[in-house]
């Protein structure tokens, strides 16, 4: 600290930072990218290990063998589903009751803000059926949940069949210490949201549902099972939940441990694990897996039915059976044994899962990057913003100088930018009826196109607003605005990265370089183009393309654009239906902040 208390040395430090500001920033940016890409390199990551004692040493023996019964139940379920044209409530209630569960139903209805064209639904009405296996001599204080969706078409029949077969097998066992809830939810996430809100008696999204009649205390963990095909070759683990929340890493470890034990092919992000980390292909594979996780986490939606549990502090994961690798075929009994093992270990838990990490990235199922390793990558980007606050020519004391620009000069663009943000947040959904009346578009298109229109209009609107009040924009004026905007962006990204690292990092990678170097004296056309190409909307567009590339389904520009539009509508829907925060964050904060920099570019 002698460094700071000695005025000479302090001055030297300041001089160094001022003189070498630009190179330091460049180095930081490159270092951040390199650090981040290095995270996928196996020697830099840690091997996963089970932290929870209650699940570690006590290996359980799996004895589930009623695979045939599961398949016949699946067929029966399918027949009744077709007959009922949706959830076969009566049959399911009877089937669960016959297996000795306490069965309850919950009906719900939800009118979406605008039609969801991906899933073709608008007015959603459905019923959840759940059966509770009461643990012997347990006082109804703790529960585990196993869910399977009742989805249209052929998919997930086996999941329900397996659920019922498991219920029957579990019911005859004496060792349960926690109640087990078997839930079949209709309309995937909407049903799940209704059930969770009903169970916790909250209403945060305006869902209409009938109150639950039976409960089983506080839910300790949940597993969601999806078997999309009749032939299952491997199991995929899905962890990313709402708002980028992840379950405790021990849940992933548990899944991996049982896959190893039973010799089941398991994947994460649909990608198998490779052992050749020292080859270029091996590294690329790990990097792709990690990038997929980052992109999925960044978009803040729930990638499986488990994602909504995380808000209620319930550790949950989805297990999805996929038919993707030839020569491997898994029978249902094996999946049943895997679930049995996992549930039995969860049943052994004495406390909630809390021993292992909540913040991590997975380059493969057996390797993880903890928050301590990935945070420096973001930190290096955030440092750039703070360094730029002290860039040459920006005198820190102009703020307090009475002869400097008035507060209004700075406040006006800030307020106008944010009003644009509010418009972007509110208008698309509220103006859809008007838009449908006047233009030949559907409601969904209306919403998305309004959003795009407002976004574009925002570019034209505020860049010379400061003239409204104080006439000529001064040199001091833009500097103060830039100072404000830089600090604002630093705080915004910092907070975002703490909650959802991926989102914060992706935004920082695109926003930091252009915002850090922005001045009004740059060539207008070129920098305007650069700014637009690095704006939040284009970030989303790039993410769409990269994602498609990574899942090995590349798209053309036209398809990419359509996907981009559907991503926006999904984002708005996720916010309205489940309370995802990405859309409001982008519309109310990130976009206005970006507009402030846009303002600086056109300062005159």
């Amino acid at each position: 600290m002698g460094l700071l208390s000695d005025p000479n040395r302090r001055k030297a430090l300041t001089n160094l930072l001022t003189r070498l500001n630009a190179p330091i920033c460049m180095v930081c940016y490159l270092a951040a990218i390199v650090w981040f890409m290095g995270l996928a390199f196996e020697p830099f990551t840690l091997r996963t290990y089970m932290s929870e004692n209650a699940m570690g040493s006590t290996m359980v023996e799996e004895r589930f063998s009623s695979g045939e019964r599961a398949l016949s139940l699946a067929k029966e379920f399918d027949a009744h589903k077709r007959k009922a044209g949706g959830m076969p409530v009566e049959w399911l209630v009877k089937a669960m009751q016959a297996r000795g569960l306490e069965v309850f139903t919950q009906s719900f209805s939800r009118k979406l803000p605008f039609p969801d064209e991906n899933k073709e639904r608008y007015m959603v009405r459905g019923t959840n059926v759940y059966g509770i296996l009461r643990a012997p001599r347990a006082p109804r204080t703790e529960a585990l949940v196993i869910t399977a969706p009742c989805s249209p078409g052929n998919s997930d029949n086996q999941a329900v069949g397996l659920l019922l077969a498991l219920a029957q097998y579990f019911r005859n066992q004496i060792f349960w210490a926690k109640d087990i809830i078997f839930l079949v939810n209709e309309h995937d996430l909407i049903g799940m949201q209704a059930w969770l809100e009903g169970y916790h008696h909250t209403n945060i999204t305006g869902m209409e549902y009938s109150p639950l009649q039976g409960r089983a205390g506080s839910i300790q963990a949940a597993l969601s099972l999806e078997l999309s095909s009749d032939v299952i070759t491997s199991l995929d683990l899905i962890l990313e939940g709402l708002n980028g929340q992840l379950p405790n890493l021990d849940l992933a470890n548990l899944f991996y441990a049982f896959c190893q034990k039973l010799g089941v092919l398991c994947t994460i992000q649909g990608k198998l694990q490779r052992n050749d980390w020292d080859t270029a292909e091996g590294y690329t594979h790990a990097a792709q897996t990690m990038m997929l996780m980052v992109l999925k986490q960044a978009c803040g939606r729930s990638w499986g039915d488990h994602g909504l549990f995380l808000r209620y502090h319930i550790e949950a994961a989805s297990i999805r059976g996929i038919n993707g690798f030839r020569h491997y075929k898994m029978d249902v009994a094996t999946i049943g044994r895997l679930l049995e093992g996992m549930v039995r270990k969860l049943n052994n838990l004495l406390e909630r899962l809390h021993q292992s990490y909540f913040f991590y990235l997975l380059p493969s199922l057996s390797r993880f990057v903890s928050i301590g390793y990935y945070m420096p990558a973001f930190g290096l980007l955030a440092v750039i913003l703070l360094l730029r606050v002290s860039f040459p020519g920006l005198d820190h004391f102009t703020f307090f100088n009475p002869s400097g620009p008035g507060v209004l000069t700075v406040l006006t663009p800030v307020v106008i930018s944010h009003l644009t943000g509010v418009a972007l947040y509110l208008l698309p959904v509220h103006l859809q009826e008007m838009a449908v009346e006047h233009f030949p578009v559907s409601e969904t298109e209306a919403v998305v196109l309004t959003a795009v229109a407002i976004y574009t209009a925002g570019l034209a609107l505020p860049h010379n607003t400061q003239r409204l009040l104080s006439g000529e924009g001064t040199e001091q004026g833009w500097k103060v605005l830039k100072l404000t905007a830089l600090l604002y962006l630093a705080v915004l990204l910092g907070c975002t990265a703490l909650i959802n690292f991926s989102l914060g990092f992706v935004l920082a990678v695109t926003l930091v370089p252009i915002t850090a170097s922005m001045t009004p004296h740059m060539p207008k056309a070129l920098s305007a183009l650069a700014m637009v190409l690095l704006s939040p909307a284009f970030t989303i567009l790039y993410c769409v393309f990269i994602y498609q590339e990574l899942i090995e389904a590349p798209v053309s520009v036209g398809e990419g654009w359509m996907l981009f539009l559907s991503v926006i509508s999904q984002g708005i829907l996720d916010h309205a239906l489940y309370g995802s925060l990405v859309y409001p964050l982008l519309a109310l904060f990130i976009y206005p902040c970006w507009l402030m920099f846009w303002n600086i570019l056109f300062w005159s």
Partner: protein
Amino acid sequence: MIQETHSDTIVASPVYTRYIYIKKKKRLVASHFCRLPLSVVELFKVGESFTAAARDQFQEELVIRPLHSGDIYASFQFRTLWDTDFLQERQKVSHYRLFPKSLGQVLSKFSVRELHISFTQGFWRTMQWGQPFIPSPPGAELWVWFHDTVSDVDGNWKELTNVLSGIFCASLNFIDLTNTVQPSASFKPLGLGNATDHRFLRYATLPREIVCTENLTPWKKLLPCGSKAGLSVLLKSEKLFHSSFHSQAVHIRPVCQDEQCTSKAWELRQTLNVVFDLYTSGQGKKEWSLFKMFSRTLTEACPLATSSKVYVDITDNPELFELSPATPLLSQAVVLGDRRTYSVFDLTRAEMFGQLRSLNLLLRWKGDSDMLRPLLHAERYVAGFGLQTGEIHTVIYNNHPYRAFPVLLMDSVPWYLQLYIHTLTVTSKSRDNKPSYIHYQPAKDRHRPHLLEMLIQLPPHSMTEVTVQFERALLKWTEYTPDPNHGFYVGSSVVSALVPSMVAMNTNFTQDQPLFSSFVPVKEESSYFVRVYTEPLLVNLPTPDFSMPYNVICLTCTVVAVGYGSFYNLLTRTFQVDEPSLPLAKRLANLIRRIRGVPLLA
């Protein structure tokens, strides 16, 4: 008949300890094999003659109720009457016959008027099983009325819990002032005397208490016959704890010795309730026998018992199930507001055991039937998410089609859930329901829990919801349990009510009964007392990450040392411009100049 004959040797000895008795019994049991009928007869005579002399009594009873769900409910009751009144006469009692000495000493030492203690593992599923004979909450429950001569009730209570903790091998010593309450209305004395001053009442629950064999063994030791003879041979822990529900209790209260109530006696009632599960114990077959339930059969009554009976609830017979061996003895009783018929097996009669010298009851279901919904039913849960606030919902159902009745709701909530009592709402049929009586005692942090008692009128066929919001307190770090992430327990709420009886409810005349008997409902059967316990709650409190103390200590120390140190340094130090120090040559020159007395160089 058989009871008339006396065995002289035994009656002759006036001081008859249990020890001698057991020796005698062994001899009798040994002879039992050679000349059976007589020796068994003798065995019964023994108990009879002895109790007649001392007026102490012991009765044992087992009620078996087949449940509609296919499970089976077995309820044991052992009743010991102790003919003494030491509280009145202020005399030291050192003479014990049937009554366990350990409990007798506790009663006299702590001036206990009434004592009720229960250990329960599991939750009674009212909706599947109907009402239990003796309800109890999950975990341990203890409530005691002290005699009104006691001056230091809290001191007595503290000592009593510690002593009972030793007697029952349970963690009752965890009962302290932070979980003890004095309910004003919910727990009235069940025995003689009309004490109403609730200053002498203490009530506490330990919802976390786990009940196992270590609690069963001391409980069995309190029985006069131990687990050697009589119904208690069935109490084998490997079966009792292979069940859906297990509850054992001890109730002590003063009762009348005779009809005129000229003298008091102490009644010790030991009860044990167990429900066996259809799937895990019954292999899914709706067929139960004593052997299947307890892996034992009955061979004799407890020789000390004046009565030893097995009742089987056959009200739904013959539609629902068949019972073998059949018995001609039937008994009718109104139990919990319902008229029930029981088959009675009197174990004091030798012919009950048949040729095989053992009694193994067999019940076989024939079909399904629907259960009448229990008239009163309650449940409770925590609403909301996050670790800051929450809401306790208590839902009470009145399933009576046309009668409203009042219930007393008692809630005892630990202090670390800080109740916002202004948010208390009671709603029935989506309308505000104003309780006619509210007794609320706010908690004091680390000293006493919240106590909330309310008298609520339940409209007919309704659901009444009581909600109250709370904030979760941040505990001091030493106050967390070793497993803080498990959560913290909140004991069951207690709903006590006089429920209109189903016998009185039955006005549809479909049952075959004389018309003259059914016009005016019978008054004494018109309502019955029921206590319903809700499930306990498991609430998560904000918990620090205890696995991090090392990191936290390191980080804090560094931050304090570096941050605070340097800022303090900067703030307190005065900066002065330093004279630049002279080069060595000049200093040497100045030294010479000083000696010479010439002005120094700058």
